[in-house]
């Protein structure tokens, strides 16, 4: 039991609407929208949280109210016409069924969006300015357009009410149109909307006044805003407090949803969506300070990953509701587990930012460790028992093998897990050695705890051979033996060490190090940071157009910040072609991929990251005698049908079925390994 749980579980009533507890999920954009509507996938994703006991779930981050604020960029919701109302109705009924509340965020993005999408309309803002993040130059709004957008907000609010939603908030955070008007940084107007703070606040007041008139005083309307833009020339904390006081004292908003920072460029964006390099709840003082000045309830999100932190924030009176948005992506059943006394079963968000990073590169939000999130139509969050208990062997105690063992054990099978090393976690244990990436270790820690709790026979320091597996006469064998790093094919590659060698301490380079990256992931960037912190002079060379090209926008800036600070030399668009010794040093030859110009570096060590190659000896040793020749029926797996050789009930006498998952198939990432395991094993 966590401290202050009772504070978290205490209902909150705002204007007659009771939220069953103080835990919520803020509006965000998981990219699950379809045709601008929250359809089945979107609804199921939120329904899972409602089932899991959440008090309030808010959807539709940046749902647009106007046609010149396109919903397309993140597959978001458009509330700009009435066609969304039936979807809202279905959605709210679905959520209310479980006792939770549902709200949406409404906004006009202003300049913070794209013109080359949906209706191809120019982006609009208070003034002709350019936002670094969106790289769009805005058209300044004319009075008629302002009036039209105000009317759009009011019409959208009405649609929320008609759709049965419990309320809505407007976004005046992260540089949307309302706060573009607030901020002297983006508002250079000289009319009644520009100049003094009073004038700059006018547009938002008009928006909220119109919304209030449309939906009445009893409908919940809130506002998301920053508590301090932490930006030279932006809104100071004092400005934000003044805005909060003005808006609440006019009775325009029923709650404030306060964040810290803004999102005008890459690093600002990464800071306002803090990843695992930040402490928990880094911006809690901001909502706390605003709460002191206003008399409406205060909501807050930003890296509140554990219930104890959330409970403290509420119990100490910093906020009235604590938003654990990413924490719910990792485990939508958070509150249920708390109230069932199963807090230890909560899969805690590690702050990898995988969910949010994906949407900025056009993907859908997926959790690095919970493969069921966002896939509720096909992937269960609670694993059903199998009709018959089987004997299963999982080889490899990395995250894929652990997830396989967990799911098979939840299915009711008798599971034995072999791990060659003395510790569960596999490659994550290596990655977690790199400075702030340590928090990744939370992923195998939870899995190992579950596996132990489910009674899986975990055999550490035991390499599984054919004999050991045969001795258990299994029905199912899952090979999750992972991969091992490769040193690439450059001439003289034998002189290189891998990022693994460095992180695991087998190699301890000093002096000048050339670190060559062909993956573009966290591995090379974080290893460069480790080496630089040890005093090495590091040059990070990559084949890609930039450092850490595969790392998403809430993580990559943090890597870059650290590498710049440490003086790491960053050389993109270059390929490592040869390594050879000269004296007691090495010469590394690199070629610019654009110009073909070759250069040499005299270094003390060459470290490379080419990803992994599968460890598949065991798989091929077992393949011939397996019923399915070691092949997963992909059609059956995708359709969620049992694997063909599982259905015949022949059991162990007829031999075993053999499956291969994760990096043992091909080197990918944590989510891929866990998803491989879940989607296969849930039907075994």
């Amino acid at each position, binding site marked *: *039991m966590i401290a202050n*749980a009772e504070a978290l*579980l*205490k*209902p909150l009533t705002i204007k007659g609407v*009771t*939220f*069953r*507890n103080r835990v919520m999920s803020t509006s965000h954009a998981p990219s699950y929208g379809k045709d601008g509507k929250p359809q089945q996938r979107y609804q199921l994703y939120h329904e899972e949280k409602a089932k899991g006991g959440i*008090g309030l779930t808010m959807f539709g981050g940046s749902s647009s109210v106007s046609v010149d604020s396109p919903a397309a960029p993140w597959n978001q919701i458009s509330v700009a016409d009435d066609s969304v109302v039936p979807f809202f109705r279905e959605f709210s009924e679905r959520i*209310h*069924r*479980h*006792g*939770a509340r549902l709200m949406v965020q409404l906004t006009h993005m202003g300049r913070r969006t794209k013109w080359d999408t949906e209706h191809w309309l120019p982006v609009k803002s208070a003034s002709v300015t350019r936002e670094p993040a969106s790289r769009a130059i805005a058209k300044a709004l004319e009075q008629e357009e302002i009036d039209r957008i105000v009317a759009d907000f009011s019409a959208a609010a009405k649609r929320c009410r008609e759709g*049965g939603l419990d309320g809505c908030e407007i976004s005046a955070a992260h540089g949307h149109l309302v706060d573009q008007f607030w901020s002297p940084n983006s508002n250079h107007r000289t009319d009644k909307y520009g100049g003094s703070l009073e004038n700059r606040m006018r547009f938002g007041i008009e928006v909220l006044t119109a919304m209030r008139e449309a939906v009445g005083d009893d409908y919940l309307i809130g506002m998301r805003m920053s508590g301090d833009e932490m930006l030279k020339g932006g809104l100071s904390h004092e400005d934000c407090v003044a805005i909060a006081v003005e808006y609440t004292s006019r009775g325009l908003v029923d709650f404030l949803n306060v964040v810290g920072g803004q999102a005008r460029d890459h690093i600002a964006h990464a800071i306002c969506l803090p990843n695992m390099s930040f402490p928990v709840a880094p911006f809690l003082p901001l909502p706390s300070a605003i709460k002191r000045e206003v008399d409406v309830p205060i909501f807050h999100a930003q890296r509140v990953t554990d219930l104890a932190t959330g409970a403290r924030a509420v119990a100490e009176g910093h906020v009235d509701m604590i938003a654990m948005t990413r924490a719910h992506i990792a485990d939508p059943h958070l509150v249920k587990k*708390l*109230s*069932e*006394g199963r807090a230890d079963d909560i899969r805690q968000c590690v702050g990898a930012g995988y969910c949010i990073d994906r949407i900025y590169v056009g993907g859908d939000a997926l959790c690095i460790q919970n493969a069921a999130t966002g896939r509720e139509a096909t992937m269960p969050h609670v694993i059903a028992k199998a009709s018959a208990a089987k004997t299963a062997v999982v080889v490899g105690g990395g995250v894929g093998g652990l997830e396989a063992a967990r799911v098979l054990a939840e299915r009711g099978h008798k599971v034995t897990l072999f791990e060659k090393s003395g510790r569960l976690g596999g490659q994550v244990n290596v990655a977690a050695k790199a400075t702030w990436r340590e928090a990744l270790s939370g992923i195998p820690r939870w899995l190992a705890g579950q596996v132990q709790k489910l009674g899986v026979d975990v055999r550490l320091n035991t390499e599984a051979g054919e004999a050991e597996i045969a001795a258990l006469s299994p029905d199912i064998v899952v090979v999750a033996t992972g991969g091992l790093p490769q040193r690439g094919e450059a001439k003289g590659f034998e002189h290189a060490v891998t990022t693994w060698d460095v992180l695991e301490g087998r190699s301890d380079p000093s002096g000048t190090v050339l670190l060559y990256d062909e993956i573009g992931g966290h591995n090379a960037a974080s290893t460069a940071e480790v080496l630089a912190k040890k005093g090495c002079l590091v040059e990070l060379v990559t084949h890609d157009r930039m450092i850490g090209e595969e790392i998403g926008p809430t993580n990559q800036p943090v890597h870059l910040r650290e590498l710049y600070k440490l003086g790491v030399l960053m050389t993109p668009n270059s390929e490592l072609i040869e390594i050879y010794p000269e004296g007691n040093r090495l010469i590394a030859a690199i070629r610019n991929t654009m110009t073909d110009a070759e250069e040499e570096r005299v270094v003390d060590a060459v470290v490379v990251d080419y990803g992994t190659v599968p460890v598949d000896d065991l798989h091929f040793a077992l393949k011939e005698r397996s019923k399915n020749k070691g092949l997963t029926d992909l059609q059956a797996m995708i359709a969620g049908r049992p694997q063909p050789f599982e259905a015949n009930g022949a059991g162990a006498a007829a031999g075993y079925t053999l499956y291969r998952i994760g990096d043992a198939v091909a080197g990918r990432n944590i989510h891929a390994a866990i998803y491989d395991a879940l989607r296969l094993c849930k039907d075994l």
Partner: protein
Amino acid sequence: MTAAAFLPWLTVAMVLVAAVQIGRRVILWRGGGPAAVDWRAGLTALPRRYLVDVHHVVDRDRSASRMHVPTAGGLVLACGLLVLGLVPAIAASRLYFALVALAFLTMAAGVFLEARRRYPRALPRLSLGRWQRLPVYLGVFALGGFATALLAALGNPLPALSFLTFFAAAAAGLALAGTAATGPMRHALAGAAHLVAHPRPARFEGGRSTDLAPLDLDAAKLGAETPADFGWNRLLGFDACVQCGRCEAACPAFAAGQPLSPKHLVADLAAAAGGGHARPYAGMPYPNQRPTGGAAGLHAAVISPEGLVHPDTLWSCTTCRACVEECPMMIEHVDAIVDLRRFQTLELGAVPSKAEEPLENLRGCDEPNGRRLSERTDFAAGLSLPRIAETGEADVVLWLGQAAFDLRGQRTLKALIRTLHAAGVDFAVLGEEERDCGDLARRLGDEATFQRLAAANIEALSRHRFRRILTADPHALHVIRNEYPALGGSYDVVHHTAFLAELVAAGRLAPAALAGRAVTYHDPCYLGRYNGEVEAPRALLDALGLERREMARSGKRSMCCGGGGGAPSADIPGDTRIPDIRMDQAKTTGARIVAVACPQCTAMLEGVTGERPEVRDVAELVWEALEAGGAAATARAKELEPA
């Protein structure tokens, strides 16, 4: 004159000696407080109370009933026959002496069986000392009487021997009669008198009487300080004790090494009343006995540094009534303990330090943890939980109790609420109007707070129209059903297991089978022993298709979880914890689930650490079965709060 001719006179002498002795005891009893006794009804009911009610309890220990029936029967028959022998014509009959001999022989056989319980080694729960010597005296009396009567029946062939046997019988018989006030044989007359003048006549003939009597808060002295503060028939009851130790064997506090033995306590109370006549106690000492004084006397404080009993003994009791249930002499141990606690709490404020806070909270906030009453329904936000103040009336008032403030208890209540929705029950809660039921305050001796809480609850209930009160808390059930009537509130109160069993029987709930799992049911004391409800929860578990395994101690003879009577608040240390012992008993059944039906039991048993079966309230199992049966969707639809 033959020796046998003196036997009737010996009987007369024994009766006279015993009468004088008992007379001294009667004087002592009269020093107790007044008690209303219906003598005629008591006397009329005596044979039945003895032969049916007492025998029913005695017979649970077969070796005891086999021993006692011939011993007591033989003794009474022999003495009765011998009194007839005062008529010379009868005394002349050899057949008559043959009958007397037969009676004595019967008695001797019984004494032999009794001796077998004590020699070569006595059962551990039995007292030694005079009790160990009792079969010797009885045996000599019986065999002496038998030989004397037999010789008379045979025509007195050996007159010298018959005088010898007579003198042996006389010596033993007079010795027994001479200690009739202080020795083991006191139980005979005190026991019979106790049955006639029992303080709880309603408990006989299949009845149940487990409510505590209200205390007159205007009395000069509140509760019992000295033996004289007990009603005279209570003092009589203490004297009836046969120190058989069945109470001690059943006592959970004794088992856990806390300094309580009901047997020892009753012996102490009897000894305290007798003052200087106290004899050393020859049973097992209180476990981890605390040092006490030895001051005894009808008007000496029992619980005091100089007194006979240490306060820790008093506060170790869980009020589980296992001792009362087991006592063949129908002694009411728990009543005595509560009376003593009342004085400690109300007159001295001498409650255990850890119990001060809950009592303070109950006095100030009407709730033992100081939570706001309006928070009682917080847990149900998001569920539909109608307040009776809003609905106006309801068929059933759901009494939430203390569980509503506790995360674990809330799970049970949520399951119950969902189940009620699934069955379409018209129910509502009191909301803020519900105060603590007062059980804890009353068991901790704070009668004033109990009466205040009860009055407030009765007043709140009187404001609304409803038919029944439903609760998942057997403690609330007990006080509202059995103890509120004395304060003016009479209600039809039903426990959730009985209510759900009704719904299942009526076909209003269709639980799916939870087959393949073994469950053992732990009877809550306040449901089973206090209220006799042992069938409904079992019927429910059976209806769920669970494999039910019984613990050795179950039903009305179940063992306490340690959670009653304010014992967790008092927290008197022992060698181990009561719930650990109980959980071990559950484990031996091999069941993976311990089904419970009380929030206290749930909390106590879930507090057991290490590998153990899962603790699930019956309501949770019912809801799980309903969910499995697809009733969940219906319930959710009904739960939907009006927008």
